[in-house]
């Protein structure tokens, strides 16, 4: 048949073999729970199978599958945000990291400690030890902060999309992202920038 090669390219067993692990890891960064991550990968591949005629050869398979996966992750988080409300009490925006803000700023809102430059980001991103520190710091975020940060930064959603998925107001979204960045900054400074070993071989 003339379209044999195209059907081969869209063989779901091959997708699973070639992309399953990467899709799973991408999902784990958002959901941090292997059962949920496995489920969204399965849903993604099933959806891809049903929609394989829509796969345009001009995008890579990985990009196409990742696009479907992002929608599946967003759908799951949207559903969860409506079941157990993401923003359910006065805790929100004042809960897990109020203490952090209190440590970082004095009563007039000025930094308690001098802020130090990190240097060239590209050089930093070259170092495996930076990514080890980043992973630890990211894993240490509360579920609320990591969910918002992952949808915004890993999936690249806009603030409007993020608020809709999390079912919270736009200003609350901004506050949560701010707290996530502040927590990551503080953690990275203590685990990476203050670590004398960081320039060692990695």
């Amino acid at each position, binding site marked *: 048949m003339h379209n044999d090669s195209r059907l081969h390219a869209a063989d779901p067993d091959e997708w699973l073999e070639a992309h399953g692990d990467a899709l799973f890891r991408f999902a784990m960064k958002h959901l941090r729970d292997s059962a949920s991550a496995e489920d969204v*990968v399965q849903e993604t591949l099933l959806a891809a199978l049903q929609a394989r005629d829509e796969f345009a050869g001009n995008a890579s398979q990985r990009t196409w599958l990742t696009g479907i996966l992002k929608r599946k992750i967003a759908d799951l988080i949207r559903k969860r945000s409506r079941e157990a409300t993401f923003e359910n009490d006065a805790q929100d925006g004042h809960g897990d990291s109020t203490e952090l803000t209190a440590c970082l700023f004095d009563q007039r809102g000025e930094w308690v400690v001098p802020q130090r430059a*990190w240097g060239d980001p590209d050089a930093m991103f070259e170092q*495996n030890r930076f990514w080890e520190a980043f992973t630890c710091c990211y894993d240490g975020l509360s579920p609320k902060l990591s969910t918002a940060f992952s949808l915004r*930064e890993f999936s690249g959603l*806009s603030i409007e999309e993020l608020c809709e998925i999390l079912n919270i107001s736009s200003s609350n979204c*901004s506050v949560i992202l701010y707290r996530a960045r*502040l927590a990551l900054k503080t953690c990275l400074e203590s685990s990476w920038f203050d670590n004398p070993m960081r320039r060692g071989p990695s």
Partner: protein
Amino acid sequence: MKFNISCQEASQLVSQQIDQPLSLMDSMRLRAHLLVCKACPVVHRNFKAIHQAGLKYALRDEAAGGACPGLSSGAKGRIAKSLRQEKGSGDTGQL
């Protein structure tokens, strides 16, 4: 609202600016603060680095091998089975 803002407020605006354009007033407040503050321009760069790191981190495991293992063989088996079932029901007798 006052024009002069604290470092805490300025760092919030720095974060907000990564996600969406600021209002004209907030943008002027932030620029004025960054001109007179020693600490916040540094924080501005560090927040931007965290933003860039987030973008890279999402797609990083392919390059580095990654600390997180892939799908378990059990999960792979389950997914393969569901795909075969779906394919079987959707196909019109190919192979």
